[in-house]
């Protein structure tokens, strides 16, 4: 409360780090492009090597922006869920939203054999995948909101969300069992997550979705702070619990659902970043935490993506593996050091 200045400095440093990491992410990739050429191109110049220019503008820059959106959106929805449920193990996907997206993707990929024979061409494209995943996560979100209106206890909602996840996972297993190896592999690749397949147009759609989620989250800052005391206290402080709960769930649904639809189910960022931010900033105040998780999420996702693309090699590791490999130790470290409360 007394130290806005120190926070301001931290935010300036964080933003600078974000810009540097963003630049680094663009500079590194399977094709080695000299830094001067990249700088020249980013600053608006044209390159003699059109292939490089194409890579920079149609692959690396959209990918870097996607990573920023994915990282910050997931981290933000993780923060929303941890505060709403007052549970340190909650993440963006506890409401079953990503399971819904997975189910949509599974239906399209593994159930499409019959459809393909019906229409005579394959229905599986990046766009159709994004659409069915969105539908899947939206349906689950709708179910969760309907149930949220009926249950009084937020903790019940958490368990119901987990149950939705289990049901979706079970249906995906059944679908997997009956599908051939090629389709299964395709689904597994989707579930690895990727930030590299978005066109500028898709990026535009994702940006709008994330922006709406962000605005709803910012509008929830005050109720989120009150919820730190518990629901009864929040209510006694004049918070309209039902309204705030909807607002937070819809924000999470848009962020997590939209991101999963375009980039696949990306693990751990949403769980780990809010913890990391709380420890580093040593505060529970959402006016500080919210912008901080957005920036940290973006930085961490850019770093993960930079590692995943294995600079100067033709291989690309699944991004989901990298986020977990980096994220899991963070969570373990947080749970082991007991100097501070986790939540």
């Amino acid at each position: 409360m007394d130290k806005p200045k120190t926070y301001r400095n931290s935010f300036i440093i964080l933003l600078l780090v974000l810009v540097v990491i963003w630049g680094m992410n663009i500079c590194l990739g399977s094709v080695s492009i000299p830094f001067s050429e990249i700088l020249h191109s980013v600053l608006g110049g044209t390159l003699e090597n059109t292939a490089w220019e194409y890579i920079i503008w149609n692959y690396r820059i959209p990918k870097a922006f996607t990573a920023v959106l994915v990282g910050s959106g997931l981290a933000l929805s993780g923060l929303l869920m941890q505060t709403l449920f007052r549970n340190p193990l909650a993440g963006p996907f506890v409401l079953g939203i990503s399971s819904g997206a997975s189910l949509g993707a599974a239906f399209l990929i593994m159930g499409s054999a019959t459809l393909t024979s019906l229409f005579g061409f394959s229905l599986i494209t990046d766009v159709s995948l994004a659409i069915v995943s969105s539908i899947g996560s939206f349906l689950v979100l709708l179910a969760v909101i309907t149930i949220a209106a009926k249950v009084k206890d937020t903790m019940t909602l958490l368990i119901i969300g987990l149950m939705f996840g289990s049901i979706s996972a079970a249906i995906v297993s059944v679908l997997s069992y009956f599908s051939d190896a090629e389709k299964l592999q395709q689904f597994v690749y989707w579930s690895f997550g990727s930030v590299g397949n978005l066109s500028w147009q898709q990026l535009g759609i994702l940006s709008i979705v994330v922006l709406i989620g962000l605005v709803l989250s910012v509008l929830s800052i005050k109720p989120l702070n009150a919820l730190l005391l518990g629901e009864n206290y929040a209510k006694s402080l004049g918070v309209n619990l039902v309204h705030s709960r909807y607002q937070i769930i819809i924000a999470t649904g848009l962020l997590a659902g939209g991101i999963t639809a375009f980039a696949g189910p990306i693990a751990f960022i949403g769980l780990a970043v809010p913890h990391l931010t709380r420890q580093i900033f040593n505060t529970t105040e959402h006016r500080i935490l919210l912008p901080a998780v957005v920036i940290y999420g973006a930085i961490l996702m850019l770093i993960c993506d930079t590692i995943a693309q294995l600079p100067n090699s033709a291989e690309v590791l699944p991004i989901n593996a990298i986020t977990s490999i980096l994220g899991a130790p963070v969570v373990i470290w947080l749970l082991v050091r007991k100097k501070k409360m986790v939540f």
Partner: protein
Amino acid sequence: MIAKNINFGIEPGELAAIVGINGIGKSTLLRTLGSTQPVLSGCLVVKDKPIVSYSPLELSAEISLVLTEPVASKNLSVQELIALGRQPYTNWLGTLSANDKEKIKEAIISLELEDLQHKKCFELSDGQLQRVMIARALAQDTSIILLDEPTTHLDLYHKVQILKLLRNIAHTTKKTVLFTSHEIEMAIQLCDKMVLLDGKNNYFGKPCELIEQKAFESLFPSDTVSFDPKTGSFRIKK
């Protein structure tokens, strides 16, 4: 068992206790008053206006709560927690005005929390945390403060300390302070009014009046515990 036919009214500047045996509905009554649970039957009126006609925000400027449930995030600092009491008055982002900061400071001073204000809640003892929760309610600057068993888990000294603080708050700030308690003897000594839930008569009045009406005599089975009206205390029968 939930007590029926409860009628009482408390004036500004009064410290009042709701006492009674376990399970009689003390906390239910208090939580109903605090609107954390719906009214089962009857009517609650604050400042001549039924409680149900208050919006959540209007009510938050009239009634503040100190509940038995633990604070969800023990990572809050004392100052942050007390500052949350100003939420009914802050803008959409919760920015504290100079007046808000003044009220927070006053609450911290009146509960003697100056040395603890930068500590985190998980570092505090039960008694300290209870004082912080009362400070938060005080910072909310409502006409009524409701407390559910504020002295549970505290030793005798801290029980007395909390109750004297509450008495002081009621008398100096002219707020109405109502709490539930099992400390009948202390309540008799410190409270201005008492609600005694016994399931039958549900007495209400000044402690001395209740003693005169022999309200306490039948509270517990007489073969185990009896009430001594001269000392205002209970005696255990051996």
